[in-house]
């Protein structure tokens, strides 16, 4: 794929290395001359020294033939405008933007960015999971943050141990996806029976995660 990255800070720099390693064709746009020179020496990619918010700079980066654009500067308004220009002027189907201030994620969705990535929010969630005592992990969110795939271990004290899947009522907006037991993975049926230490994978609407947990975990 032909991918344009705008912003060569820590995120853009590392992303360029990774995507280049995956054999994609990369063009990197960066305002600072020194950073451009450095990356130009490291990687055999097109590096454009300029402001990614300017249409002429995006053209110099070959946006007319790009498949994806990722705007990862440290400024939310810049990332938003870069993605909007890519979509409106150059009809790029997939725009990905780094959200610097978590409170702005909603605006990115409203203003048409295909995939806003809230790095602070992701980091905070991971840390929250690591420091909290429960084994609950939000594996991935999709549909613009409306759905989540979650996993957790079923404790021995859970009220649903030895019950069948058909006997357990999940919250309305949730689906049981898989049960991992040892090395086996079960796609649950109505008569699958829950056992202690089962690893549960469920799909749920964001905001319903705690309701899902309440179904499976013993009361605190």
């Amino acid at each position: 794929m032909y991918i344009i990255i705008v912003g060569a800070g820590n995120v853009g720099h590392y992303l360029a290395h990774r995507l280049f390693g995956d054999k994609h064709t990369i063009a990197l746009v960066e305002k600072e001359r020194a950073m451009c020179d450095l990356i130009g020496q490291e990687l055999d990619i097109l590096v454009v020294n300029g402001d990614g918010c300017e249409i002429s700079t995006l053209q110099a980066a070959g946006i007319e033939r790009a498949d994806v654009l990722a705007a990862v500067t440290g400024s939310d308004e810049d990332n938003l405008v870069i993605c909007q220009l890519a979509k409106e002027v150059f009809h790029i189907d997939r725009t990905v933007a780094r959200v610097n201030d978590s409170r702005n994620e909603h605006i990115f969705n409203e203003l048409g960015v295909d995939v806003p990535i809230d790095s602070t929010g992701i980091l905070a969630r991971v840390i929250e999971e690591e420091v909290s005592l429960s084994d609950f992990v939000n594996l991935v969110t999709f549909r613009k943050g409306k759905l989540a795939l979650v996993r957790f271990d079923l404790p021995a004290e859970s009220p649903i141990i030895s019950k069948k899947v058909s006997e357990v009522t999940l919250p309305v907006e949730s689906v049981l996806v898989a049960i991992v037991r040892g090395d086996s993975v079960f796609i649950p049926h109505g008569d699958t029976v829950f056992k202690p230490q089962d690893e549960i994978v469920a799909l749920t609407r964001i905001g319903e995660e705690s309701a899902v947990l309440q179904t499976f975990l013993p009361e605190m």
Partner: protein
Amino acid sequence: MYIIVVGCSRVGVTIAQSLESEGHSVVVVDRSRENLQKLGRSFSGITVVGSGFAPEVLKEAGIERADVLLAVTDNDNANIVCAQVARKLFNLEKVFARIYDPARAATYQKMGVEIISETQLVVDALKEKVFTKQ
């Protein structure tokens, strides 16, 4: 009229003072408290510190009862985002954004954002001076 001015730039200060002296209710929003002090003691309108495109900041500025919003920071992209948030999230009709870059101005004008293209205005004014006989 109830008018929100986002950005305490030179343009922001001048238009806020001017509108207020004409009897309008003016609220000025800026990220920096220091910038807001440029309005001077005589300014009796409300000031709000915060990002001009943050919905909670705009709410605090009273966008739900505002008649007009002017996005006039010195940053094109902040103005563009602010104008779109006011239009799309708060359904405010009269929203104007100041943009220096003529290319971006043309693009967003096409996308339905009301633009004041600062560079184009100056260019047009200069050309008129040059080619108009005294």
